[in-house]
């Protein structure tokens, strides 16, 4: 037992080792020993005693294994963990954390652990897909937000992502060590990715973060497709939600981004027709056609599409958006005028009384949807005064938002670098590079002028990744 314990704690802490190279070698050796150790039959009998020993030696309050697990997941060494992908994955999945902890804590723990592993949150793993699904199913959205608010730009299985650099290299991008080979994730299929973004959108819907939900669904519907492949069922589902959320967010029918591939686009146009027509009708001045559109589709349709609650909100928002749009026309408007000028989408008629309008308007103000106030001047009528500066940014607000955007763009730097590195080690690129070099040498040996070298883009079949995005 002594020897086991000695082996376990044999790894020196970070300060004791010199450079990365040394650290890397030590870490690899240690990992190997541990793996061998755990396979040993002696391990099973010795482990409990070991814990006892550790308890007394370190003074950890270890009477609770869960607490220890918690402590580990929230404070493990982000450098060392790179060598322990297998253990990391095991810890998160066997036994499943949600069987040990209440769901909300399990979600929070996994979220924290994943963000410790990859603070940029840019690499998707099978843990992510599992976590988000679990969080959504158990309605624990709040604790998972830090993860789902990050933009994922890397996926397991990318060619050329296995780096030649050591795992301990502090400059190694997360996509360099969070790989299937290192056991940090299982390999994923495109439907996992689509589902992940769809679920993110659903989580944001729960939070009523319409913009984020809209963006998440947009990722699903613009997912690249090769050879005009049709949309998947998940995409069709996302499209319908994207339209509805778009209505809530902007009060008008969203336009498919130019990056939408042609195959799925056609599918949306056909299968998404009811939603598209609904969105068109939403923009009309009178609620009649909107009402006809949503009533034209049976309750069964909405049930099947699982958009009942969302639709209810959209119906509710019809009149709200009509009132909001009045801010472009009026600075102050009597509630009675609002009553006659706007219609409830439920009845396709104006509301019955000014009191109802006042309640609605007040609700919108309280909700933060509308900037303004209801005033009661002496003439006995009630008016809605739109705040005049609602659309204009203050200098501070402008600066704040500009700086925030700049910082986010800056934060993309390492990601871009990682992508660059990966692409630079691409086989086709290297082939081209070698060719060019050869041409250059030939040019020199012949003493001729500059050699006309065909560009990289001409050699490699041009994969049009962003059709139309620049124009858009």
């Amino acid at each position, binding site marked *: 037992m002594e020897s086991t314990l000695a082996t376990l704690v044999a790894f020196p802490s970070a300060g004791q080792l010199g450079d990365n190279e040394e650290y890397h070698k030590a870490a690899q050796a240690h990992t190997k020993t541990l793996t061998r150790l755990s396979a040993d039959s002696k391990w099973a009998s010795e482990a409990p005693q070991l814990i006892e020993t550790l308890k007394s030696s370190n003074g950890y309050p270890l009477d609770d294994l869960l607490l220890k697990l918690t402590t580990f997941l929230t404070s493990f060494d982000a450098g060392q963990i790179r060598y322990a992908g297998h253990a990391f994955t095991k810890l998160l999945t066997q036994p499943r954390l949600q069987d040990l902890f209440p769901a909300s804590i399990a979600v929070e723990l996994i979220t924290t652990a994943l963000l410790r592993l990859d603070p940029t949150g840019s690499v998707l793993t099978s843990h992510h897909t599992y976590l988000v699904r679990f969080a959504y199913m158990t309605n624990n959205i709040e604790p998972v937000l830090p993860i789902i608010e990050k933009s994922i730009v890397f996926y397991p299985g990318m060619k050329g992502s296995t780096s030649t650099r050591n795992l301990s290299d502090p400059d190694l991008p997360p996509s360099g060590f969070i790989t299937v080979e290192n056991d940090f994730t299982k390999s994923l299929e495109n439907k996992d990715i689509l589902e992940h973004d769809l679920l993110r959108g659903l989580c944001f819907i729960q939070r009523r973060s319409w913009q984020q939900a809209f963006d998440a669904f947009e990722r699903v519907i613009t997912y690249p497709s090769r050879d005009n492949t049709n949309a998947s069922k998940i995409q069709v589902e996302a499209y319908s939600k994207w339209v509805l959320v778009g209505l809530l967010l902007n009060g008008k029918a969203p336009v498919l981004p130019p*990056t939408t591939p042609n*195959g799925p686009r056609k599918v949306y146009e056909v299968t998404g027709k009811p939603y598209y027509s609904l969105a068109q009708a939403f923009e009309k001045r009178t609620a009649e056609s909107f009402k006809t559109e949503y009533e034209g589709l049976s309750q069964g349709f909405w049930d099947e599409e699982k958009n009942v609650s969302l639709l209810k909100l959209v119906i509710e928002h019809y009149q709200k958006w009509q009132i909001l749009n009045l801010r472009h026309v009026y600075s102050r408007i009597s509630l009675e005028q609002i009553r006659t000028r706007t219609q409830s989408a439920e009845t396709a008629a104006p509301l019955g009384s000014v009191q109802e309008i006042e309640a609605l308007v007040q609700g919108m103000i309280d909700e933060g949807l509308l900037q303004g106030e209801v005033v009661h001047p002496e003439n006995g009528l009630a008016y809605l005064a739109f705040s005049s500066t609602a659309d204009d940014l203050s200098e501070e607000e402008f600066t704040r938002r500009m700086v925030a955007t700049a910082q986010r763009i800056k934060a993309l730097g390492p990601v871009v670098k990682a992508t660059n590195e990966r692409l630079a080690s691409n086989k086709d690129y290297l082939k081209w590079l070698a060719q060019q070099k050869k041409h250059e040498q030939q040019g020199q040996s012949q003493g001729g002028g500059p050699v006309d070298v065909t560009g990289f883009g001409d050699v490699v079949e041009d994969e049009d990744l*962003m059709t139309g995005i620049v124009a858009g």
Partner: protein
Amino acid sequence: MADPLLEFFTQMDIQGGVVVQGEYSPKFDLDLYIQNYRGRTRFDRLLLIGRSSVKLCVEALKAALAEAKRGRDTQRYRDVFEYLRVAAPNDPDAVFDKKWVDRQDVANHEETQRLLTELKGYKNNLVKESIRMGNEDLAKHYEAIGDLNAASEHYSKMRPDVSTAKHVIDVGKHLVRVAIQRREWSMVAPHLVKMTLGGQYPEEERNAQPFIRVASGIALLGQEKYWEAALSFLDADPNVPPKAYNELASRNDIAVYGGLLALATMDRKQLQSMVLENQNFRVFLEPEPHIRRAVTMFVNGRYSACIEILEGYRTDYLLDIYLQKHVSKIYAKIRSKCVVQYLIPFSCVSLDTLEKAFGSPERPIEEELAVMIEEGVLEARIDGLERLVNTVKIDPRAQMQASALVSAENYEKQAIERLRRMAIAAADLELMPTKKQGLHLPLGGDISFGDQEIVMG
């Protein structure tokens, strides 16, 4: 029995036609009006008036019937007779002349055959000029009997055999005329382009100028390109006798079209320099002094007077073959321009003042303003409490800031999107055709949306 005229116009209304009510009496005399035109447009114009004006209905239909009978197009005769039969069944003219129709049909057929044979002969002889003339005769015949498709085809066939500048102009004129009759507005411009001779034949070009301007104006009007149409009409040369273009429009029409469209699209300065001080256009304006007055009023800032004059002529313009469809749009444009111009010097105007200047009993000015603001024609906000209209001054700084933010945010979004797409491509994770081409399986794993309705917080 119900009033046949009433029944007739009910039908016209159902068919979506414009009906000008009885109490408005047009300000022109039908005979004098139609004398200004030549060719097939006469019938078209008479028929349109007959279908639209309650007051002139029977008179115009009868005139159209006579016009049809003077020509060779029996289909036109049948059409107008049908209208007259419904509108005035007891009129002595409402008797179908079957004999004439049959005779004319036979004659038309024989003439077609004769001309076809002739053309064939010319072709065998390979004399270019004869072939050109043969085609022209045949096409003219087709046009006269109403087969515009064939006419257009044979007019086009003239083109390879043209030898003089006049021929080029003639082919163009024929084709443009047919295109306008068929209301193929987009076809007019290409034909017109081929009529330009590059300054080598000043005489021919000068004579063709008003035709080209008028045709292009009418085509642009048909495509709702009002500004370009206005420019085209304003540029017409008044020194060429109307015979050169009255198969399309009269001198009066040029004044009306040009004036109205200019009012609808130009600001005061442009109206002053391009309409009132335009020596050529002044000549056209002479017979239509009210257009000139309306423009002058607008330029002088007397907007309500301008609108008043125009309203007096609204029904007349509704009886014009090319204007009819656009009258309400053009008038609305002029009206909203008047309101906008009226508001320019003020930062704040009371609604009551505006009501006095522009209000009409049918529609309160507030509603109209609201629509204008919504459509972006007017930058203003209505204050319903103080009953004021406040014009909005655009703050370029705020605009710049907003657009800077948008581009920064777009940049970020695009960058992420590009990275994501590259990664997906590198991981071979794009959607790919599966063996069973079609929809992918629904959400897999242990999740099922079937029993999980979204619970709204």
